[in-house]
């Protein structure tokens, strides 16, 4: 059952991929697509290989990274609302990049984004800290929201001051966009993503134990502090990688885990993470496709589309929580 449902996500991703390569300002038929993609010839070769394929791969990679990050946070904090976008890490990463652009610092974007995300994470943790107590999840979420508000306020300020030539770039780091992505960015997100996934593989079992509660996990021989810190760092870095390529795309990290798990009915920690990554990739790629294809001749930033998809999800989730009296 579960395998069949996992195949469903894979099939949906494949469908979105094919459609993404075919649909756009220039429509490409299946034959031209094949010739352009595989044989590198025909009228579609340039469009597919230079414009659409890198954009699609960036969407898949960034979406998977964000989805993975959100799923880790949600499992670790045992709260479906805990996600790097809600908790301000994405906004922090985006702000760091926009600072780098406006000050002319020429460091690699993933590094800058990771620093921004990391600083935001440390800020959230430090500002939620009260003496002698673990901060509760709701405080973490609220403080994270506040950090996110501050970061996006400052991003807007810096974005307005950028010269018009950089305005599109600024837009990317405020709302998230996948326009003008090249093979460099593809290498970036997939390369770093692979490294981080390798780091994650080692920690999956620890995540499974942490889900049983701190006391039992420690009783089973887990180093609580070490494994928590490792997982949090991996999740923040994953989110930062996604942001470095696509900007702080909202709601992907929040939606991916619950959606993927609902579709696949995954149970174990590894399966849940995979489901989160898959549905993150699916959401982002599908949102970008919609953003390009819904109105011909107009390209919406992908962040606007995930906002249009994600906000109703969050509202639905909250109204359900209201009915059940949770939260």
């Amino acid at each position, binding site marked *: 059952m579960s395998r069949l449902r996992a195949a469903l996500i894979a099939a949906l991703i494949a469908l979105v991929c094919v459609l993404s390569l075919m649909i756009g300002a220039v429509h490409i038929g299946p034959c031209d697509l094949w010739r352009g993609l595989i044989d590198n010839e025909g009228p579609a070769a340039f469009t597919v290989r230079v414009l659409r394929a890198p954009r699609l791969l960036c969407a898949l990679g960034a979406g998977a990274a964000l989805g993975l990050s959100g799923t880790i946070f949600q499992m670790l904090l045992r709260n479906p609302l805990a996600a790097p976008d809600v908790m301000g890490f994405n906004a922090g990463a985006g702000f760091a990049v926009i600072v780098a652009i406006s000050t002319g610092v020429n460091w690699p974007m993933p590094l800058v984004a990771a620093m921004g995300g990391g600083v935001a994470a440390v800020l959230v943790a430090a500002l939620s800290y009260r003496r002698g107590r673990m901060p509760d999840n709701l405080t973490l979420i609220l403080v994270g*929201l506040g950090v996110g508000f501050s970061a996006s306020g400052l991003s807007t300020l810096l974005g307005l001051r950028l010269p018009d030539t950089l305005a599109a770039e600024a837009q990317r780091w405020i709302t998230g966009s996948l326009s003008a992505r090249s093979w460099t960015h593809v290498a970036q997100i997939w390369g770093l993503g692979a490294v981080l996934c390798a780091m994650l593989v080692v920690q999956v079992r620890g995540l499974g134990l942490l889900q049983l509660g701190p006391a039992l996990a420690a009783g089973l021989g887990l180093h609580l502090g070490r494994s928590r810190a490792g997982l949090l760092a991996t999740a923040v870095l994953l989110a930062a990688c996604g942001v470095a390529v696509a900007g702080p795309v909202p709601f992907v990290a929040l939606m991916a885990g619950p959606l993927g798990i609902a579709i696949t009915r995954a149970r174990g920690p590894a399966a849940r993470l995979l489901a989160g990554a898959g549905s993150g990739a699916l959401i982002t790629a599908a949102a970008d496709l919609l953003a390009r294809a819904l109105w011909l001749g*107009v390209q919406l930033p992908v962040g606007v589309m995930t906002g249009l998809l994600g906000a109703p999800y969050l509202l639905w989730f909250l109204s359900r929580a209201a009915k059940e009296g949770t939260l």
Partner: protein
Amino acid sequence: MRAAVIFALFVAGIWSSLALGVQAVGLDDMIGAVLHAAPQTPAELVFMQIRLPRMATGLLAGAAFAMAGVVMQSLTRNPLADPGLLGVNAGAAASVVLAALLTGHTDAATQALWGFPGAMIAAVTIFALGGGLRGDRAPVRLILAGVALNALILSALTALIVLRSDALEVFRFWMAGTLAQGGQKPLVVLAFIVMCGGAIAILLAPALEALALGHGLARGLGLRPRRTQAGALIALTLMTAAGVAAAGPIAFLGLIVPPLARHLAGPQLRTQIAAGALLGPAVLLLADTAGRLLIAPAEIRVGVMTAIIGGPVFIWLARRMRTTRNGAP
């Protein structure tokens, strides 16, 4: 003493807004400008044409957003409830833009009126999602619902603006607030609406205070919770929509001012609302002046300024809020 602080802040806000800027305007210029039929110096011209309308807009919008914030916080019993953060501003802005697109009317007065239905829908939605109808208190749910509503409306607006690139400049006003275009707005009508909203709020204040003790107790005190809630929602909708019509959506003012008002005006809701009417303009005008001076001759939109001040305030308030599982959420 505390009343003196409130008035001092109010006067400081007005004075800074009128006097400071690239063109310094002294008291004699102001008096001259008022006395002379036609402006005789550049300073007088700047005062009459730019500073005075700007200050009036700030006065109106500041009072509107701040009083709406006090009412919203009392109604939801949530110190983080700012009409802007909860999506009421965005609702007003979105319905103005939609109406302009659909009807083609672009004159300021009609536009301003179109804000009310959107603000009302957003306010009721958010209030229901936050558990307000049943009288339970869910601070985190309320705030997140606001985030979602804001994101939804903002994404839709961005999409509209990208689609209608011809109208970009017109719509930019409805994305981030500014006091610079107040001169073109029907300020007198809007001021009247804000005063109506404020009057309703002040009349309802004792009932709202009783409601804060819980629906059961409020009923026992002979109140009708539904009516009080409806009245408060109408009041804050009127004020918010009028504020948005004058200055565009400015968030966080309803977050920054209420704790100030509580601190300076004491625990009574009625005095808090009145204090908000003075402190709101003070904060907004000071923020606007700072935004004009920081990177002169360019300026930072006041909506961005309040967002930058408001983020840390939000964190500070969130830290102070009790979010224990049985109590609050």
